[in-house]
């Protein structure tokens, strides 16, 4: 018996890029995060071949979750085909052997920046959101150790105070993306910069959501069937973006979150969830008799522009 026989053969890279100890640490932190929904868990953010702030937090969680049978979808502001989304997706596939997809229904792991797909996620899917600033208390308490103490005390008065002052100044709540939400009735989290439109999708969802900030080295989770309640005054209802009545100028679909494209006169809108738009166009082409264009749109969270 030689040492060489006991040692694993040299490989240029570990499976899934991260070395096993890094993955083990991340898994532990992810389990902790599931155990205390919405509570931020610090972790040792590793180097990945991407600049901090470009989704390294999400990438590390995804790398930890991957297996060869996984099917990954990567979204950047709703689109699958942006440079960032495409390169993260191909990187994930290259280091793990997982299949790539654009289709929400086909994916097992969805890493996303700024959006949650419009089609309902299932219990067998995991959503990984990239988070730039995980600390909802940062605007009110720059000192992070005090902020952690405030979380421990559930001392969220100042967070409410910000909403109060927006109401005073503007007559409405100005918080756009990253609307603070109370998870499981205990911890307030910032749900990454997803639009207000997407926050209700997290409430009592079937799927597991991880939110991870690589630069800030924090991750937190929303387990399946967990309450996620945006902070709202009892007499000022929560309002999502006013997109329910807009129509996509390319697919003709109405009732989802749209990107506004300014024109010389006015603006037009297109679906932010780009693959939903592609599927809708293919469906209408199939109805029009174009061959090989059939596709399937799954059940969506919003129906006719409102969340049932």
């Amino acid at each position, binding site marked *: 018996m030689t040492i060489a026989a006991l040692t694993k053969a040299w490989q240029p890279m570990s499976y899934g890029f991260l070395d096993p100890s890094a993955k083990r640490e991340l898994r532990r932190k992810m389990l902790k995060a599931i155990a205390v929904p919405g509570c931020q868990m610090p972790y040792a953010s590793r180097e990945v071949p991407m600049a901090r702030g470009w989704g390294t937090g999400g990438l590390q969680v995804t790398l930890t979750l991957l297996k060869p049978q996984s099917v990954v979808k990567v979204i950047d502001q709703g689109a699958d085909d942006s440079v960032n989304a495409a390169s993260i997706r191909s990187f994930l596939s290259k280091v793990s052997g997982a299949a790539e997809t654009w289709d929400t229904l086909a994916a097992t792991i969805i890493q996303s920046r700024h959006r949650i797909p419009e089609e309902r996620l299932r219990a067998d899917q995991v959503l990984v959101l990239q988070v730039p600033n995980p600390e909802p208390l940062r605007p009110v308490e720059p000192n992070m150790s005090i902020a952690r103490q405030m979380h421990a005390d559930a001392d969220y*008065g100042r967070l409410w105070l910000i909403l109060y002052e927006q109401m005073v100044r503007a007559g409405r709540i100005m918080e756009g993306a990253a609307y603070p939400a109370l998870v499981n009735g205990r911890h307030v989290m910032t749900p990454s910069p997803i639009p207000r439109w997407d926050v209700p999708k997290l409430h009592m969802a079937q799927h597991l959501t991880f939110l991870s900030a690589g630069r800030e080295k924090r991750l937190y989770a929303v387990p399946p069937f967990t309450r996620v309640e945006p902070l709202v*005054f*009892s007499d000022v209802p929560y309002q999502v973006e006013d997109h329910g009545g807009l129509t996509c100028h390319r697919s003709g679909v109405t009732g989802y979150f749209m990107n506004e494209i300014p024109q010389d006169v006015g603006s037009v809108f297109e679906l932010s969830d780009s693959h939903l738009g592609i599927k809708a166009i293919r469906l209408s082409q199939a109805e029009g008799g174009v061959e090989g264009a059939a596709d399937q749109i799954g059940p969506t969270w919003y129906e006719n522009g409102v969340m049932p």
Partner: protein
Amino acid sequence: MNAMLPPQLMTTPPLLTMTGLCRRYGRVTALDDVSAMVYPGEVLGIVGESGSGKSTLLRMMNLEDTPDSGDYRLALPDLPGNLFDLDRFARRMLCATRIGIVYQNPHQGLLMKHTSSGNVAERLLIAGERSFAALRARGRVALEASEFPLDRMDARPIELSGGMQQRVQLAKAIALEPALLLLDEPTTGLDVSVQALVLDTLKRLQRDRAITMVIVSHDLGVLRTMADRVMVMRHGRVVEQGLADQVFQDPQHEYTQSLVHAKL
């Protein structure tokens, strides 16, 4: 001299009872076996020079600090036992909902970059108020009671004068109708005329709402107008206590006499 008798006619128990408080900071003795009682509706004045321990005592009343030994009780429902035994969370809730405090330095008591009404609203939010309309209305009531001009209620304290800042602190302190209002040199550093107005507001508040107050000041004039009873502190000890008019007209202790004689 005769020793004082225990209360005979006063049948209501004291709201605040502190017994045997000792606190040392390194080699400095801040409090040396201090006891105090405050009855409901009463205004207790604490006077003494800097370093006499009067502010430390007030901080203890606000549960900001824990003594080395001593007992603190408030006769409020659901609050049995020594309050110093409460954990941080329970202390915070107690301070937010049942005790109001006005600091000498408004920076200590206020969020300077938030609106004045927001500073009041924060207290209500901590106590669980979630209706925006109610926050507005209750904030307005508290600010009005502390005679703050309502057309400025959404100005930031940093833009306000010292007297106005103290009024915001006061409004914040009384917003939840606390059982106990603590005032730490509330008028020190204000112009004399502003000082009179703030004191008048306090007096009016005391008269209208019968709030139990503890007011710490090195200014005898402030305590003469405000306090029912006065405690004189020196080197962490209580050297004399009595009815305000008695302590000021017929001070017994040498130190109190020198204080009274030094008053202009």
